[in-house]
């Protein structure tokens, strides 16, 4: 999975000589990722932009105390906290659709999905997943964070990232299989 620079990750960081980039350079580079994650959390363009703005302001204030490792995860974690704060304060939450999770061995899981169905509906169905699964799939599969980075971003252990990710993918595949069955 595409994490950071492999040389930095394997040699430089363990030697303790990792040098933190400037806030502006990091923040500007991460805006598209933050926006997509915010949009996936809020399901709303204006709210997503507002959330990224809040995140960047909070990150700028906290930049001096940040250790410089996993900046993307760090920013996403701030964003997620800001989102939770918004939800609590305004008691607003994106509308989620209740979906059932079947046994992993269910026949729907194993049937072949047509590429056409997947391409047309994948993001639409991803946005319908419960938040914890939507975020795990979004971070690991769309934004290509490693399990470790996603764990840092969500503030959960790597094992929990995997279980949410695998279950989220399973739910997504079930949704896509259901659509395909309906189309046939």
């Amino acid at each position, binding site marked *: *999975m595409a994490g950071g620079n492999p040389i930095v990750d394997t040699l430089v960081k363990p030697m303790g000589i990792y040098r933190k980039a*400037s*806030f*502006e350079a990091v*923040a*500007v580079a991460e*805006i*598209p990722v933050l*926006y*997509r994650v915010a*949009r*996936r959390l809020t399901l709303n*363009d204006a709210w*997503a*932009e507002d959330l*990224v*703005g809040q995140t*960047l*302001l909070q990150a*700028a204030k906290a930049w001096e105390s940040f250790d410089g490792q996993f900046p993307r995860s760090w920013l996403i974690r701030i964003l997620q906290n800001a989102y939770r704060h918004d939800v609590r304060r305004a008691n607003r939450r994106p509308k989620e659709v209740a979906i059932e999770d079947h046994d*992993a061995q269910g026949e729907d*899981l*194993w*049937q*072949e*999905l047509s*590429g056409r169905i*997947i*391409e047309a509906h*994948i*993001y639409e169905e*991803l946005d319908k997943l419960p938040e914890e699964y939507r975020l795990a*799939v979004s971070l*690991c*599969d*769309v*934004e*290509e964070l*490693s*399990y470790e980075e996603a764990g840092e971003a969500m503030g959960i252990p790597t094992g929990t990232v*995997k279980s949410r*990710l*695998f279950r989220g*993918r*399973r739910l*997504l*595949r079930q949704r*896509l299989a259901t659509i395909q069955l309906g189309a046939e």
Partner: protein
Amino acid sequence: MEGLLNRAADGSSKGLARWYALAHAAHCSGCKKFLDNLTRMIEQMRREKQPPVDQGAVDRLTALVREVGAVESATEQG
């Protein structure tokens, strides 16, 4: 097996774990379909990152970051 196949599909497993998942899938048609479909789904998400990012929003947020940076610099110098 589902976990091993998930990790093989997203490329996070290496060495023996990856070899075992692929070797199993080569002889098990159900797991092979599962692995192929999952790999295709993940590749699709990585290739076409959605939703598209609104360039106007990016420009406004970039301006915000630069403004904050300018204020911080002025504070440090002053």
